[in-house]
C-alpha cells in the first residue's frame, strides 16, 4: 500500500475516532486539530497558558502552536528555559493559583527529567492534602518515531504514567479524538492530564464531525471504532490505525470481522467495553505503541484474567516494541516495531486456529514509510 493509499483509506472515515466520525464531512489533519484546540483554549479561557521549549518559534511544536504567541501574546504562549523539572513545578504552582497550564514536551523522553514534579507532586497534590487542591493542567508529550530518532527520542512512555494514581493518560488516535478530548479536558477536568501524541500522525488527514450542541463526550473513555464478531483488537494511538488497516484487509480477503477498540484513556479504560467485546469474540489481540512488559499489553491481560479468563477461546496475543532500546539503523528499527503484516498474521492465526492459515498477508512495509515520507526530525 502506498503512502497515499493509506491516507486515502483513513480519509474514508473508517479509521477516524469513533463511529460518529463516519458522519464527518470536514477533513482535518492531526496537526490542525491540535492547533485548533490550542487556539480554542486560549480564546475561551483567559487562564490558559501554553508553556514549552519552542512554543513561540516558527516551527511551533510541529505546527501545533504556530502563530499563537503573536496572536495571544508572549505571556500566554511562553517559551521556556531548558528546565523540565523546574518548569513543571512552575506549571503546578500556576495551576494551584488559578491558571490552566498546557505544557509541551517535543519528545516524551524529555518529560523523564520532570518525573519528580509529575509523579511526586502533580499526581498527589489533591489526595495528599485531603482534596483541598486541584492541579488542572495538560501535559502534551510527543512520541517520536523513525528517521533514526533512536533510543532517547522515540519512547512511548504511557504505562510509566498510567501506573501512577492521580494521573490521567490519554492517547489520541485521530483528529476527532483530539477535538473530543482536549476541549473537554480543559473545560471540565480539574486534575493533571498527560496526552501522548504520535509524531507519525501529525500529517495524516482525518474526517471529523463537529459536536452537536449539548453533546458531551467523555474525554477519558475508550472507543469502539469498528464492530466485529471474530476477534477483538485493543489498540492505542497509531496502533489503532494499524488495527483498522489489518481489519479491513481481513474483511476483504477472508470476510473475517475484527472488532477494534481504541483504548484511548490508558489510565482508566472502559473495561466494560473491552470485556463485553472479548466475551463476544473470545479472542483478543492487544497492540500497543510501547514495550509489552509491564505495560498496556500486560494491563489488558490482567483485567481479562481477573474478570473472565474463561471467555477466551485461545491465548491472548500481544504486539509491541521489541524488548530493547530503539536502534537507529532503519533495518533494525523496522524489526523493532510491529508491522501490519505481523498484525494480520497473528489475527489470521488466532481466528483460524491455525498457523498455516493460508490467508494472503499484506506486503511488508515499514509503518514509517506508509504514514509519512519523513525527512528529518523537525
Amino acid at each position, binding site marked *: 500500500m502506498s503512502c497515499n493509499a493509506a491516507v486515502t483509506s483513513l480519509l474514508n472515515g473508517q479509521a477516524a475516532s469513533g463511529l460518529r466520525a463516519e458522519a464527518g464531512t470536514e477533513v482535518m489533519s492531526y496537526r490542525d486539530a491540535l492547533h485548533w484546540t490550542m487556539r480554542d483554549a486560549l480564546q475561551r479561557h483567559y487562564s490558559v497558558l501554553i508553556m514549552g521549549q519552542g512554543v513561540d518559534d516558527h516551527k511551533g511544536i510541529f505546527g501545533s502552536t504556530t502563530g499563537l504567541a503573536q496572536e495571544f501574546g508572549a505571556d500566554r504562549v511562553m517559551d521556556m*528555559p531548558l528546565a523540565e*523539572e523546574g518548569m513543571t513545578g512552575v506549571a503546578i504552582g500556576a495551576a494551584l493559583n488559578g491558571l490552566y497550564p498546557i505544557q509541551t514536551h517535543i519528545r516524551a523522553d524529555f518529560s523523564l*527529567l520532570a518525573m519528580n514534579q509529575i509523579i511526586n507532586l502533580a499526581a498527589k497534590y489533591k489526595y495528599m492534602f485531603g482534596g483541598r487542591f486541584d492541579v488542572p493542567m495538560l501535559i502534551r508529550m510527543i512520541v517520536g518515531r523513525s528517521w533514526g*530518532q533512536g533510543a*532517547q*527520542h522515540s519512547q512511548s512512555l504511557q504505562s510509566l504514567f498510567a501506573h501512577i494514581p492521580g494521573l490521567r493518560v490519554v492517547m489520541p488516535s485521530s483528529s476527532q479524538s483530539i477535538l473530543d478530548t482536549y476541549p473537554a479536558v480543559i473545560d471540565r477536568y480539574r486534575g493533571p492530564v498527560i496526552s501522548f501524541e504520535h509524531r507519525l500522525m501529525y500529517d495524516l488527514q482525518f474526517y471529523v464531525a463537529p459536536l452537536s450542541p449539548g453533546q458531551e463526550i467523555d474525554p477519558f473513555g475508550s472507543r469502539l471504532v469498528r464492530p466485529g464478531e471474530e476477534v477483538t483488537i485493543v489498540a492505542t494511538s497509531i496502533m489503532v490505525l494499524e488495527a483498522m488497516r489489518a481489519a479491513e484487509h481481513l474483511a476483504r480477503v477472508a470476510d473475517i470481522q475484527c472488532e477494534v477498540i481504541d483504548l484511548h484513556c490508558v489510565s482508566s479504560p472502559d473495561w466494560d467495553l473491552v470485556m463485553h467485546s472479548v466475551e463476544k469474540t473470545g479472542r483478543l489481540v492487544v497492540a500497543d505503541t510501547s514495550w509489552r512488559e509491564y505495560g498496556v499489553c500486560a494491563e489488558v491481560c490482567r483485567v481479562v484474567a481477573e474478570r473472565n479468563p474463561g471467555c477466551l477461546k485461545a491465548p491472548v496475543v500481544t504486539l509491541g516494541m521489541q524488548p530493547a532500546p530503539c536502534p*537507529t539503523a532503519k*533495518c*533494525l528499527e523496522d524489526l523493532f516495531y510491529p508491522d501490519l503484516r505481523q498484525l494480520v498474521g497473528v489475527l489470521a492465526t488466532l481466528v483460524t486456529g491455525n498457523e498455516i492459515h493460508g490467508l494472503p498477508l499484506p506486503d511488508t512495509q515499514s509503518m514509517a514509510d506508509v504514514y509519512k515520507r519523513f525527512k528529518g526530525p*523537525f
Partner: protein
Amino acid sequence: MEYSQQFCELFFQALRIRLVEERIIELYPSDSIQSPVHLSIGQEAVAVGACRDLRETDLVFCTYRSHAYYLAKGGSLAEMFAELYGKVTGCARGKAGSMHLAAPEVGLMGASAVVASTIPHAVGAALAAKRLGNDQVVVGVFGDGATEEGVYHESLNFAVLHRLPVVFLCENNGLAVHSSQKARQGYDLLEHARSYGLSVCHIAEGYDFVKVADTMSDIIQRVRLTREPVFVEIRTYRYKEHVGPGEDFMCGYRQQEEWLAWKRQDPLEQYGDLAETIRPAIMKEIEEAVHFAMSSPFPSVEELLRDVV
C-alpha cells in the same frame, strides 16, 4: 603566505570536520543517512582547540552535536560514516545514528541526545580519576542551553565540593534551537560559575582555533596538576539550522549579518588558498570512509536484541 606548523595542523583538523559535514549535507538528500544530524559547521574551532592537548586517556563527554568532538578526539571517520549509514560496522553497530557517537578507544565517552545529561558523567569520571589517583583530565562539553538544566548546577556544586579534575566546557552559540540566550537566561554564565567557587575563563574568539588551543592547553595543564575544576565559556556560532542540513536565516529568529560577521573571522573561510592545498587529501579520506560505509552490511536480525542486558 607562510603559516606556522601549529596553525596548519589545527587548520587541517578544523577543515576536515567542515568537509566531513559538508559531505553529509551533500549525501543527506539521498536518504542513505536516516538520522537527525546536528551539524557543528561554524563551531569546529572549539572542538579542535579543546582537544589538541588532550591525551587519548583524557576523557570527553559531549552532546548530540558530536561529530566535531568525535573527530577532534580521534574517532574513526570510516566508523562514523558507517554509523550514520546505519551499518553494523559503525562505531555503535548501527544503534546510535548521529546523536550518540562514541569512541572510547580514544576517550570520546559518548554523546547524549538529552540536553545536559552527560555533564554529571564528566563529573563522575573525574571522581573516579581522583579515587584511582591517575592524572586524567575530564572534559564535559555542553551548550549554553544546557546550563539551564538543574543537573548542570548540581554537577558544578559536586565538582567544587570534591575538588574534581573536570573542565566544564560551555560552547556558547547563543542559541537553544531557535531561542536566544537572553530569552532564556537571567544570569551571567561566568558570574554564575564563579559563584560556585570555580575558576572561570572566557574566550570570545571561538573561531580562532589557535587561541582556543593555547588557552585550553594552559587550562588542561592546570587541571592535570591542581586537580581542581574549571569552567570555560567559548563563544561560537552555528552556521546551519539546529538540526538538519540546511540554513535557516529566512526563518527570522536570527540575522544573516551575524553569520556574515562571524564568517569574516573564520580562518576556514579566510584562508581559501591553504584550504585548497589541503582539501584533496581530506576529500580522499572522506570518500574512502563513505565507500566503507556504503559497502558495509546492515546489521542482521540478531543485532536487534544484542547488548540489551
